[in-house]
């Protein structure tokens, strides 16, 4: 049973091993820096607790926002014919290729209070300020997470065989019922994978958050921002929080397993 394609040449194995070492070494290095004896105390420090609370709340809200905006987008991209399709697709992918800080500057241009296109209006008419607020964090995180969700959902929608929706229609299921009872269950794997990736991205966002929502402890200082700030004032706390973030990420990836690379285990 040793087919041609399953024999792995030695240099390929060595290359893969180097890749593993390249990725594993930083994680090991981080674990070495953690002061295990003070870990609990560091993680229950006020600034850290605030950061975790804000990160959790904002990332979940951002993921929901990404879903609300992303599902219709994915649907149209997957199933509708319309001119300007390529433009919309490029727009959806833009936050993925844009350096996060640039994304933050762009968000300021749109939603900033001072001279943002929409932000200025919101402020003068309703006194709403999106920057330097939790909403600012949510917007920044949703901005960078949206592409991940749309890509996953679009892929899922494309791969669904229309025959199931057709047979549901013949059996009397109207649009919404078809979507809820047939399309969504078929979409579940892509939906779950997309949500997890989007959430992970939102959780880890730094550049856009700090530029748009600022670095206000207890209000907009998310976990990544807290790590960055603590690196100077409290390195031990920074390492402790970093360890926690790594643990969460690993947990997420284990949860996803092979689903997001589209293979079976």
């Amino acid at each position, binding site marked *: 049973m040793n087919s041609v394609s399953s024999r792995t040449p030695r240099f390929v194995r060595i290359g893969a091993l180097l890749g593993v070492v390249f990725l594993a070494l930083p994680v090991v290095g981080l674990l070495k820096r953690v002061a295990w004896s003070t870990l609990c105390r560091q993680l229950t420090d006020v600034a850290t607790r605030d950061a975790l609370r804000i990160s959790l709340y904002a990332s979940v809200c951002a993921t929901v926002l990404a879903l609300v905006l992303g599902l219709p987008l994915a649907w149209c991209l997957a199933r509708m014919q319309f001119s300007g399709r390529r433009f919309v697709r490029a727009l959806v992918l833009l936050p993925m290729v844009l350096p996060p800080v640039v994304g933050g500057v762009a968000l300021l241009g749109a939603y900033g209070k001072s001279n943002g296109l929409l932000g200025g209006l919101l402020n003068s008419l309703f006194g709403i300020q999106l920057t330097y607020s939790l909403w600012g964090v949510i917007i920044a995180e949703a901005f960078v997470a949206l592409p991940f969700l749309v890509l996953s959902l679009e892929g899922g929608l494309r791969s669904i065989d229309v*025959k*199931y929706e*057709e047979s549901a*229609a*013949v*059996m009397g299921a109207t649009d919404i019922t078809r979507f809820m009872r*047939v399309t969504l*269950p078929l979409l579940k794997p892509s939906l779950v994978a997309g949500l997890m990736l989007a959430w992970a991205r939102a959780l880890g966002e730094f550049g856009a958050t700090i530029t748009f929502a600022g670095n206000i402890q207890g209000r907009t200082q998310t976990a990544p921002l807290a790590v960055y700030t603590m690196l100077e004032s409290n390195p031990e706390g920074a390492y402790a929080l970093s360890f926690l973030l790594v643990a969460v990420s690993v947990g997420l990836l284990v949860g996803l397993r092979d689903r997001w690379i589209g293979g079976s285990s």
Partner: protein
Amino acid sequence: MISLHGTVEVGSFSRGLSIDVGSEIVGMFGANGSGKTSVLRTIAGLCPLGEGELEIDGVTVDAPAKHLFVQPELRNIGMVFQDHSLFPFMTAVDNAAFPLQMRGMKRVAARKLAAEMLEQFGVANVALQMAPTLSGGQSQRVAIVRALIGSPSAVLLDEPLSAIDEESRESVRNQIREHLVRLGVSAIVVSHDRAELDHLCTRIENYTR
């Protein structure tokens, strides 16, 4: 009552067709790829007519000239698809109960009725199995139940016995005919097996190219 007079889109070309079905089981015989499935899909509302008119139970459901088209979900049709198209994420009984739930029946009652009918067709033993785990013959029987269960106005069957084993064919055929006669509806059966149609249908139309 099914009355179709017009043209049906088969792939990239149109095919003129005139068919009237009363309270009977009409068979359409033709080779694979001749467009028989397209005719069924048009009657079900999954494709529009090219031109002409389609009436079901006296109600015009498709008339391109008058810009009239009734969506499939409003046509009350039972259909057995060529590849069964059972929902892979549901059990056999939930699949069979689906049309009843779409007509408003509550889940528990629908499942009960579905289970009874599955028994009649000899697949009660797999009622709680997930659809992808069923054998070809089992899933085809579930598909047949699903098509007949909702008291449809018309029944369309696309190669309904292709996966059923030789010995069981006769009994399944009888079951189908019994149900159709009891419902008193118009039914169209499409098959490339002439003998099959002879046994099941009251009348046969030739649909060769």
